[in-house]
């Protein structure tokens, strides 16, 4: 626990109007980490992302990104949102989507792409192995290809942290495993925070796992502990349903030999 903190949340309480979604959340992620956070739908995953990105202010507690407030630090985050069905209809080419990663804060300075911008966009496309799709319109792409475009856009921001929201929601299992291989490779230089309700996918690839369900349980370990089971018991339901309990449950856990 001596590395540089890239994301810190200290006693964060957050929600919408009368509906509190997150309570007493403490979280610390360090450079080089690859954290997977799982949780049921409605468990506060989206709210957690919004707090980290500075899109909503917590009622209580503070968040920090790269040591500063989320609003100041969020440009270090390469954000990979969940793919929405309606942006499929938006008429835009892959190159133009990825070039959004090069947007400057002053809108007037976004008139032209510099040579550096173009080189970074090309590198990001190549990293995700979609350079040949650059001139294609995004509505001609498959779910897996579109997910790669979204990750390439995040990489074009030259991020310190990649933040992925349900990255496999619209991807078939083969391209999702390819995507996780790519992420493991990216993790050599970039810290990754992956948030999903799909434990099966996450557990195989990430270095450490946490659980969000109103509260966040995260000990910087790969295994799901009893504490997580009791505080967010919807997680192990997912876990048993996917039939791979041995991978993530600690060995001393009793009564899981049904497999």
């Amino acid at each position, binding site marked *: 626990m001596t590395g540089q903190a890239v994301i810190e949340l200290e006693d964060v309480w957050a929600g919408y109007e009368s509906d509190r979604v997150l309570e007493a959340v403490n979280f610390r992620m360090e450079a080089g980490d690859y954290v997977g956070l799982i949780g049921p739908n409605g468990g506060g995953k989206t709210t957690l992302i919004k707090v980290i*990105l500075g*899109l909503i202010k917590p009622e209580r507690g503070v968040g920090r990104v790269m040591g500063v407030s989320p*609003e100041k630090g*969020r*440009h270090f*985050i390469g*954000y990979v*949102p969940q793919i929405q069905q309606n*942006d499929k209809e*938006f*008429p*835009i*080419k892959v190159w*133009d*989507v990825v*070039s*959004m*990663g090069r*947007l400057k*804060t002053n*809108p*007037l300075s*976004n*008139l032209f792409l510099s040579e550096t911008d173009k080189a970074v966009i090309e590198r990001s496309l190549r990293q995700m192995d979609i350079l040949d799709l650059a001139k294609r*319109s995004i*509505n*001609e792409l498959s779910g897996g290809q579109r997910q790669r475009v979204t990750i390439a*856009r995040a990489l074009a*921001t030259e991020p310190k942290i990649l933040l992925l929201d349900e990255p496999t929601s619209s991807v078939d299992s083969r391209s999702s495993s390819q995507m996780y291989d790519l992420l493991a490779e990216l993790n050599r230089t970039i810290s990754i925070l992956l948030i999903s309700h799909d434990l099966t996918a996450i557990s195989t690839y990430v270095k450490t796992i946490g659980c969000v369900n109103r509260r966040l349980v995260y000990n910087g370990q790969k295994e799901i502990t009893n504490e997580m089971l009791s505080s967010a018991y919807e997680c192990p339901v997912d876990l048993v349903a996917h039939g791979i309990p041995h991978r993530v449950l600690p060995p001393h856990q009793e009564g899981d030999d049904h497999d």
Partner: protein
Amino acid sequence: MTMINQIQIMFSYDFMRNALYASLLVGVACGLIGTLVVLNRIVFLGGGIAHAAYGGIGLAYYFGQDPMLGAILFSILSALGMGLVHLRTKARSDTLIGVMWSIGMAIGIIFVSLTPGFKADLMSYLFGSLLAVSGADLRLMAVVVVLVIAFVVLLYRSLQAISFDETFSTVRNLPVAVLYLVMLVMIGLTVVVAIRVVGLIMVIAMLTIPPATANLFLKDMKGMMLLSIGLGWLFSAVGLMVSFALNLQAGSVIILVASLSYLLAAGVKKLIVHLKP
């Protein structure tokens, strides 16, 4: 007598030439701004701005000012008001936009009825009066077109980004709210000049039909904007000539030409997709 001759005679009239110039200018503004309106799914908001402008027209009438001035003022104010509502309360913004839409109309109707005297040309703001376009109208249109072109060209990538993915743009620290409000003011100005051509009731059609038609065939925002301008010109020129030949109200004929063309294009596209595999 040939077709060319007839067209020559048509445009030997000053009012017909002005009508054509007005259509061409408004076609540029509507093509650029209409594409943004369609892609941002704020057609209803555009309609709201147009109708709220009537409040300004009524007030200007009552106080003996130029109605266009009132329309500009009200459309900008309502654009900013609706924009703030839209940015703050995503969920119910359509309700509040509907309310502002009606308030504008109500103010307009009340002040028009309070104004004594002859006011026949008030109808022209509702249904357009393309054949009555003056030199001053053309100058106002030219100013708006220059502003709209500068806005779209200078901010193209930022506008594309906020239209495509507002959250990502916010995370990149683009001033999303400011860009959004400026875009709405540009919509307001475009609506005002388009009112001259087709009237405030049909402004929505002028903003949406050319981009919707272009979007059937093009999957790129820049291409959509350029083709929308071309289509706007085509619809207006054809509509104008048909209305002259048949002695019908110009704005309405333009909208019908546009709508029929859209339906035709959608049919042609269906056919192409059907025949392809």
